[in-house]
């Protein structure tokens, strides 16, 4: 299995060095080969399990609760302007 490391890294928003790209290409291929043993499992007509609890219909009533004060919301960043988070201009 050949994995397009550059493309996947871009999807994952992950900056990788050339060295890392090479290393991951090899390691991920090995791991993929290992996990492809699942192909031998007969899963015809088998339901999926995405959650294990069997819970359904869990929701909350439409009621408000207090929000964080602005200074707490912004507490862990230094890049602030006028009460907003500031980043380099995006398109």
């Amino acid at each position, binding site marked *: 299995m050949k994995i397009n490391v550059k493309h996947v890294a871009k999807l994952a928003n992950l900056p990788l060095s050339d060295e890392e790209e090479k290393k991951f290409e090899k390691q991920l291929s090995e791991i993929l080969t290992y996990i492809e043993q699942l192909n031998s499992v007969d899963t015809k007509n088998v339901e999926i399990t995405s959650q294990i609890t069997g819970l359904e219909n869990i*929701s909350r009533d439409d009621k408000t609760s207090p929000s964080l*004060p602005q200074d707490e919301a912004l507490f862990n960043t230094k890049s602030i302007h006028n*009460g907003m*988070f500031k980043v380099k201009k*995006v398109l």
Partner: protein
Amino acid sequence: MKPVIGLEVHVELKTKSKMFCGCSADYFGQKPNTHTCPVCLGLPGALPIPNKTAVEWCVILGMALNCNIPLFSKFDRKNYFYPDLSKGYQISQYDEPFCLAGNIKLNTGKTIGITRVHMEEDTGKLIHGNVDGEEVTLIDFNRSGVPLIEIVTEPDFDNAKDVVDYLKKLQQIVRYLEISNADMEKGDMRLEPNISLRIPGQTDLPNYKVEVKNINSFRFVEKAIDFEIKRQTEILEKKATPLQETRGWNEAKQKTVSQRVKEEASDYRYFPDPDIPPIRWSRDQLAELKKQIPELPIAKKGRFISEFQISEYDSEILTRAIESADYFEEAVRIGKDHNVSPKSLANYIINKKINLENTLPAELIKAIISTSSYATIDNDKISKVVGEVLAQSPQATNDYKAGKTQALQFLIGKTMSILKQKIDTRIIIEEINKQLK
């Protein structure tokens, strides 16, 4: 060449709290980042709990749009990166949305298919600008996590006018259901038409599609679509294919401009959100929700015509907003006791452009009674006509002067017949007396 147009509309709900947390959803005009919590700010470890009302409203809207409501549904994660998306994924619905396969019937009689109606959450708001000489983007997460319903149509439109009609009808339904203000300028309702053209003889869908964003009024959507049709026609006539891209409507330039060319198909890596148990409706629950749907515009319009014998035109105007429709019905109820017909009420409300917020229906009836029997007419006209009548009828005038009251009736009748209006006789008598003094 024949346009192929589909539409994605986002409607922001007016729930009290956000979609997955208890922060107030009433963020408009508030100080930035004052309506956030661990959940909508995407802090580590925070988990979403769905807002029951928002979920129910989504289903109710789907029902109002004639959708099928599958008994099983779930939330999925849509993974992508953008600074306004606090978790690196948006909680949305992928392959099992709340509502499927509905429709809206247009004025022309054409039916537009609705592919799906699903529930998701809004993102934060980005503001681009220059701070200390640096080009920056500022982020306010107050809007992050506000409930959003997405309504996706089939590519059933072939002109801009139909799109506008569809949008007006959708907006009307949403407002009837009282689930959103659907105010385009405030961003409660956002539209993204995708437009392409079939070349003559082509039956399948075109192999490209242009999405237009940044449209915040019905007027602009019409202009943007017409512009795109013209632009794409010119390209196709040169035997080229328009680029698959996202464009934005630029009102100042009166044209769409390219925003982003999609290099590769977006890959959102959807998967079922493990934090939110799925939703399973019982038939009873769905029946209960269905009961919550009020009479919708089309039904109301039809009922007004048949029940109150008003014109289709009047009914259309009166049922445009639930407020005016309710007002009219209340006025009809009160008017019944005062012999004021629904028809005259409709005329009065529509022609006099009554301010419904400042005038109670009872006040309106009073006003109609006091003016409808004695239509107002300016005094100059009355005095002119009375003058003419007196001059043309010397016999009756003299008789009246001599104290014969039948002569007065003759003069009044004559005046009225010239005025061709029902007027308070006291005004005419007063004028006659004045002129004979």
